[in-house]
């Protein structure tokens, strides 16, 4: 009996290891395949049959991408909006979080509900479009930064973290004669680094990955494009081949920029360029992300 339990245990471990390897392959293969295509000769890629390794190695695709002015602009825009939105968003959300974390604040409950409501009540795309139009944000670079600084969930996560800090910290600052704003900047923010890292990363990833803002609000001006939107346009050309109603025009735009190399290669290369910054960062900052899920699930 004992032996058979052990054998079945071993069998289980073997099965589980194989299963996990399968999962790893499934997660990584699409990415590695695209990497191989991006490093393969563009005309050769059309023939297909490239799996994990380039058949005719070349860096030409990357050269074309980085020589393309539109894509360089897109890259700069992506970086700039990500940095500005993250810094601005962290400032706004942490300041709001600080105020609602103060138990003695009399409008505490009202403000919290006022913020939480925004998670459920959304006016929808069309009213938002009209608001942006009235504010002059349509086809304006600032549409990437100005509207998206606040997030109720982020405020709650930061507030929860701040509530866990010892009261004596703020009291000590008070005795030293520090006002609320100074206490927030000089005392509370520095010790909130872990939660700020978590929330900041969410914001950064969200901004870097956003293509929809460009598609809806900034598509009329080419120089306002971002990397993800360029990729979306190129992806559109593949879908257009199947007869997509919307992407037809976009695909024409996307293909126009690169008549010298095949769309397969360009698509693969842009995919890698758009993915690599995040892939380089996330394994090292993983614990902050995971931490955030935990804080969020406690109070969310």
């Amino acid at each position, binding site marked *: 009996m004992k032996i058979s339990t052990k054998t*079945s245990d071993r069998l*289980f*471990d073997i099965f*589980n*290891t194989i299963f*996990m390897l399968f*999962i*790893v392959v499934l*997660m*990584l*293969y*699409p*990415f590695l*395949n695209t990497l191989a295509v991006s490093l393969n000769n563009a005309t050769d890629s059309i023939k*297909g*049959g490239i*799996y994990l390794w380039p058949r005719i190695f070349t860096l030409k695709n990357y050269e074309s991408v980085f020589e393309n002015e539109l894509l360089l602009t897109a890259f700069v825009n992506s970086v700039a909006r990500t940095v500005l939105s993250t810094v601005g968003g962290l400032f*706004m959300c942490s*300041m709001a979080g600080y*105020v*609602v974390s*103060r138990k003695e*604040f*009399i*409008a505490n409950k009202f*403000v919290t509900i006022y913020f939480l409501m925004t998670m459920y009540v*959304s*006016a*929808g*795309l*069309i009213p938002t*479009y*009209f*608001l942006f139009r009235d504010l002059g944000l349509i086809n304006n670079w600032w549409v990437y930064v100005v*509207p998206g600084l*606040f997030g109720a969930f982020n405020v709650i996560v930061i507030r929860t973290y701040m509530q866990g800090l010892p009261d004596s910290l703020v009291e000590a600052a008070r005795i030293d004669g520090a006002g*609320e704003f100074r206490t927030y900047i000089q005392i509370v923010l520095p010790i909130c680094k872990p939660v700020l890292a978590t929330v900041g990363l969410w914001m950064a990833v969200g901004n870097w*990955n*956003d293509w*929809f803002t460009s598609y*809806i609000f900034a598509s009329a001006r080419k120089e306002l494009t971002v990397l993800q939107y360029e*990729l979306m346009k190129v*992806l559109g050309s*593949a*879908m*257009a081949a*199947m*007869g*997509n109603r*919307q992407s037809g025009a976009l695909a024409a735009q996307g293909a126009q920029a690169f008549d010298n190399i095949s769309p397969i290669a360009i698509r*693969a290369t842009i*995919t890698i360029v*758009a*993915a690599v910054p995040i*892939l380089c960062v*996330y*394994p090292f900052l*993983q614990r902050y992300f995971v931490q955030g*899920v935990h804080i969020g*699930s406690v109070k969310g």
Partner: protein
Amino acid sequence: MQKRKLGQTIIRQRELFFMIIPVMVYVFIFSYLPLKGWAMAFQQYRPQRDVQQWVGFDQFTFLFKDAAFFRVMRNTLGMSTINLVLGFTTAIFLALMINEIRRKNFKRIVQTISYMPHFLSWVIAAALISDFLSSRGILNTILVNLGIVETPIIFLADKNAFWWIFGWGNVWKSVGWNTIIYLAAITSIDPELYESAELDGAGRFARMWHITLPGIKSTILVLIIMNMGWILNAGFEVQMLLGNDLTIDTSETIDLFVIRYGINLRNYSLATAMGMFKTVTSIILLTAANFASKRFAKESLV
């Protein structure tokens, strides 16, 4: 007397007010002010002439009689349900299996890799998925070489396949990430339970089934209830990026309908009515889900 006290408190806390009021104004502008646009749902708004004519509930009656509305609802609910069922079962299963990995380093590597797709944008994910499913993609290569099919299947052109592409695409992107919450719940299970079960001769499967799974049952149920509140949120990204004219019948969701009518066809009133319908229904569903999960949490504590 009371009033003076309140006034004094406000004056004493003025600095907190100075800090919060700008944020509240900002939230008012970007989250509450757009609600006035809902008026468009009760008008026939013609942007060319800027004519606003009140029509009452006409937009809604038109919407509810439109065949497109039912198609869109069916697609939204269908994809949400597939997503819910597939998403939960795969994440729970993967969490249970990851929990059984003995070597710590291997476990960490598997976890890190499984989180990867979560961080990629849907545009990238859609590009990867469409390559994976293409006629020369790996899936077709395997199917053809194993002799399961004779000629490659063009999955993305098959309207009956779209919901499943959506469902499994979502699984690929978020299954790893979704295990985090279950793995956290598993760590709070009393290790003595496992020890005594082992003494009783329970194998690995038996322990998973009788200890781990019941141990995270309440987490699972609360998450399912909460997710049901979001059932009208099947999204638009996958549908827009992977959908095409051949699959429009099964890929168009509420959000996509709003984009198509509002942005592309400029029928602002109808699109707003649809958006409003979605928000109002969602609030009702979420309130119900919130209530149910609170009640459930209370009961499970007793």
